[in-house]
């Protein structure tokens, strides 16, 4: 009695094989990320130093550091998140909590999904037309950040929508049922429970902004600037653009420079992402369900 039949034994063998397949695929997906970072670290190590992070590039960008590009990337990312985050979250709240499900809102949802699929170079042209020329911002940090914000909006809206949807409907019903208004329900019940998901979307968009090159190409980033930006109406340099420039446009850059720049960019994005992970787990422990 209770001994496994041959059919059951077969089943268990298959189960094991399948599990091994899945785990090895997952591992091989993780491997490239690790190899890339290690490779960049090894190739870039000759120039990696504190000076590399804190000095200006010199000698026609063939020596020196990358300080202005870090500053520029920081400006762009912070400003674009400040614009896209409130807009995106508000739009998502409207779509999820207020808007009726009709043809118009379905078209809006579809448009948002499609916006996410628009190539970044097209966003760049849109930014050039709308912000730089039409709104007369000129090529500036402001115009570039707005372009990045437009590019990131669909990501933030979609991820916020998903996390709002994940809050059980019964919570809303319970809240309405004691006479809470929609706004009160959103404020006290829906938002507190969807913040981890919303944060994830925001942080992904930070990563995308930091790495984006095409969208800021015509709208606010310079190849080289001898000074740091003093206001949002100045142009700036950026890590991603600088990487492109010194890898392809400038002659005589030592090999280690692009690798080291790429490493800094990747580590920057990784550290932002890990902040998100920490925040998310913090909110999870605070959660009451």
């Amino acid at each position, binding site marked *: 009695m209770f001994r496994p039949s041959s059919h059951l034994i077969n089943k268990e063998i298959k189960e094991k094989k399948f599990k091994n397949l899945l785990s090895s695929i997952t591992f091989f997906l993780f491997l490239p990320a690790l190899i890339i970072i290690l490779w960049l670290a090894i190739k870039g190590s000759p120039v990696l130093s504190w000076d590399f992070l804190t000095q200006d590039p010199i000698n026609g960008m063939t020596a020196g550091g990358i300080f202005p590009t870090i500053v520029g990337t920081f400006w762009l990312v912070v400003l674009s998140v400040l614009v896209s985050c409130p807009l995106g979250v508000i739009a998502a709240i409207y779509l999820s909590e207020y808007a*009726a*499900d009709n043809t118009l809102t379905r078209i809006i949802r579809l448009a948002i999904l499609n916006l996410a699929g628009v190539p970044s170079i097209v966003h760049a042209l849109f930014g050039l037309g709308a912000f730089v020329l039409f709104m007369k911002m000129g090529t500036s940090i402001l115009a570039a950040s707005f372009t990045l914000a437009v590019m990131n909006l669909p990501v933030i809206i979609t991820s916020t929508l998903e996390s709002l949807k994940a809050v059980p409907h*019964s*919570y809303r*019903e*319970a*809240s*309405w*049922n*004691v*006479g*809470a*208004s929609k706004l*009160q329900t959103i404020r*006290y*019940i829906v938002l*507190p*429970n969807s913040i981890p998901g919303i944060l994830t979307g925001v942080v992904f968009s930070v990563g995308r902004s930091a790495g984006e090159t095409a969208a800021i190409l015509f709208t606010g980033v310079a190849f080289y600037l001898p000074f740091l930006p003093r206001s949002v109406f100045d142009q700036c340099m950026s890590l991603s653009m600088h990487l492109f420039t010194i890898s392809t446009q400038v002659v005589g850059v030592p090999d280690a420079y692009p690798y080291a720049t790429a490493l800094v960019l990747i580590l920057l994005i990784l550290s932002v992402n890990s902040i998100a992970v920490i925040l998310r787990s913090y909110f999870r422990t605070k*959660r*009451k*369900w």
Partner: protein
Amino acid sequence: MRNHAVNTNEFSFWYGNFQALKNLTFNISTSKITALIGPSGCGKSTFLKCLNRINERGGEVSHEGSIQVLGHDIYHPSVALPELRKQVGMVFQKPNPLPLTIYENVIFGARTHLKKVKNAELDMMVESALTRVGMWEDLKDKLNRPALGLSLEKQQRLCIARLLPLKPKLLLLDEPCSALDPAGIEAIEILTKDLKRDYSIIIVTHSMSQAKRVSDDTIFMYMGELIEMNKTTDLFNNPTEGRTAAYIEGRFG
């Protein structure tokens, strides 16, 4: 009028094109427990949800006729839904405490309705509401624990307790025991009978024996229509309609 908690007059209700309630006309007395029985889909839950208009969130609904709660037309344009829901509280089939602490659950409604409340008053509300549902002794040291950690029966009691600080006039219980075990059912039934002193209660139930145990009056509905309404003992002992008799004897439904 005075001693009627609910008067419905030729009330019909549609979800889109589907007519869920047909020409309901009846009165429900105050300070009594009225049971709504009938097979699934007969409209009893729909009727209950009409009483605080909670069913208007999910798309196209329309109605004809009128419902009065304590003599006031609840479909009158001047009616503010939050105020209606404050006075007509509902307890759902599945206990649905909010993802907050026990304390915050009890006062959530009060917080949303009152501008500024002193902490001492909130403490009082929590104590009296939890005392009323018989959980104060048990929970007074655990008020800051998540409400979702309670057993289902206690969650359901908490769902009743959180209505009480709002001083509702009418309590609607939508199959409040269907997720509970026999001990939980008994506890909720005892509580329901006890609450009758202060509140008018309408309870939707699938259990004939529960209707017999707790209610004073019973309404039998079928296909969106009122078939029979009577004192519970009379309805179960001498049903006048064939369909009522068939249903309570378990021949369909």
